[in-house]
């Protein structure tokens, strides 16, 4: 297991490099929230989820809904790395004619289940998927990844209420709680705490973890499968911009991409030199 975690750590590091390079190239996109969520996505795509990049619509797959759709670059680099589409496609992120839309679009991108990005809507779709899978007696699970700023949307609580009402134990909600939103600190804009208590009072089994501790993420996701009769909410405390020191905990890097000057420094933070070789 220890070796496996080291492998996943290395995978997360290389995906962070892909995120930084992709966003530097596109000159448009959301850096901070992509870097805060990537450890969770790494564990989901490379450890937890049953999926087949060569057969994206395989009926037996687990589903991932990135409700905080602005972190699409994080999902895109993982999908490309898994082989859903060529890594070359990342250069067309947010470009006319490319399939990698600014926010996830199931119509064009293999591996994307639904359209997200208008905050608050993804969890409802995850609830619908979980209901549908249960009707089919499927053992597939649904993972919905939310932001903490997104919890300000009322629809999240409608959906959580429904997930609990319908006892959706095939649904796991992950909250990327990086504490920041576009205008500043979540706590100052519109406080959402206590997040764990809120999900708990809405009927979820709640665990709170360090969202960059891969072992903790693995354990939380593994444990979630043994919870019956209620959905699980994993409140993952994260750092916006994680991995690039000068991006970390800065709301200003919510929707800003690395400049030409910042790129080499960002790659250096990630243990990579600018020309692509290992440091």
């Amino acid at each position, binding site marked *: 297991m220890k070796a496996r975690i080291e492998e996943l750590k290395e995978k997360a590091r290389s995906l962070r490099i892909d995120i930084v390079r992709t966003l530097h190239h596109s000159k448009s996109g959301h850096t901070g929230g992509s870097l805060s969520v990537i450890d969770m996505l790494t564990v989901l795509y490379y450890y937890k989820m049953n999926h087949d990049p060569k057969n994206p619509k395989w009926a037996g797959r687990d*589903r991932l809904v990135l409700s905080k759709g602005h972190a699409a670059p994080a999902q895109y680099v993982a999908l490309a790395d898994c082989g859903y589409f060529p890594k070359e496609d990342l250069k067309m992120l947010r470009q006319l004619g490319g399939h990698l839309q600014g926010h996830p*679009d*199931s*119509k064009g991108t293999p591996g994307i*289940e*639904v*359209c997200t*990005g*208008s905050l*608050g*809507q993804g*969890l*409802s*779709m*995850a*609830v*619908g*998927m*979980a*209901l*549908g*899978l249960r*009707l*089919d007696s499927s053992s597939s699970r649904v993972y919905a990844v939310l932001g903490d700023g997104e919890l300000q949307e*009322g*629809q999240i609580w*409608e*959906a959580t*209420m*429904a997930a609990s*009402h*319908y006892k959706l134990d095939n649904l796991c909600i992950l909250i990327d709680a990086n504490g920041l939103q576009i205008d500043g600190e979540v706590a100052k804009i519109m406080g959402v705490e206590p997040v764990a208590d809120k999900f708990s009072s809405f009927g979820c089994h709640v665990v709170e973890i360090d969202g960059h501790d891969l072992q903790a993420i693995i354990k939380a996701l593994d444990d979630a499968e043994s919870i019956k009769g209620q959905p699980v909410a994993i409140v993952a405390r994260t750092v916006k911009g994680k991995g690039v020191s000068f991006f970390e905990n800065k709301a200003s890097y919510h929707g800003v991409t690395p400049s030409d000057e910042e790129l080499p420094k960002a790659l250096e933070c990630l243990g990579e030199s600018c020309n692509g070789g290992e440091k």
Partner: protein
Amino acid sequence: MSSMIATRDAYGEILAELGAENENIVVLDADLSGSTKTAGFAKSFPKRFFNMGIAEANMIGTAAGLAAAGKIPFASTFAIFAVGRAWEQVRQSVAYPRANVKIVATHSGVTVGEDGGSHQSVEDIAIMRAVPNMTVIVPADGIETKLAIRAAAAYNGPVYVRLGRNKVPTIFDENYRFVIGKGVQLRAGTDLTFIGTGLMTAQALAAAEKLSEAGISARVIHLSTIKPIDEEIIVAAARETGAIVTAEEHSVVGGLGGAVAEVLCDRFPAPLKRVGLNDRFGTSGKADELLKYFGLMPDDLVEAAKEVLQRK
């Protein structure tokens, strides 16, 4: 007059039939299943019915998720909530991904009656028509409702079906063949054409009868599909009769009248009079009183016809 049935009652009946035929059909409601008539399906197929409570935004999103899981969801509530409260969910979660969700809204228009303007949706056709990927259908009677719901279930993509609360006259018979996107001529005429949708088509038929007594020959076309609109039947009517009156239980802004105006302007400009609510909200009252109050009676259509004829 022929038999009377509310389109929502016809919906409840066909939904139960379809449920027995196709186990992929699932139904969602937002605490109005008795009124929208989805309760019959709920009773027959409890595992495939989801009452989502008074939370329309989540209901529409959940429907999109069910569609993503391969189901054919029918989501029902009053038109004002399906289209108003949940508009952005309809746009982002249903229309944008082209999810196979059927939104069947009842209690549209002023004939909701006593509940008043807050509950009378008079702009839903315009709003739904503006959304890409959306098909918009407004059946005229119970028979057409059943055919339209069956067609919606067979069609792969988002559909909005607008139904009413009250009993309306049956104008179609069992031989009627409903096709999404096709208008149908119900009465021949040469002097002008009424184009109606929903319950207003029956009013147009009555108006045409009155006009014939005055020696005026009015064609009557029923357009249940507002989008995609049947351009050819509109252009032919303009070319052959030279004047058009549209009739809808909806605002004259952006609904059937707006859609017909767009086709005429693009393809064959002709005098047009739009009959509907004149950019105003509804109000409390009995349904038949409100149809009179808002100028949606056959006599109002006769007046509109005479006015538009002067512009020929």
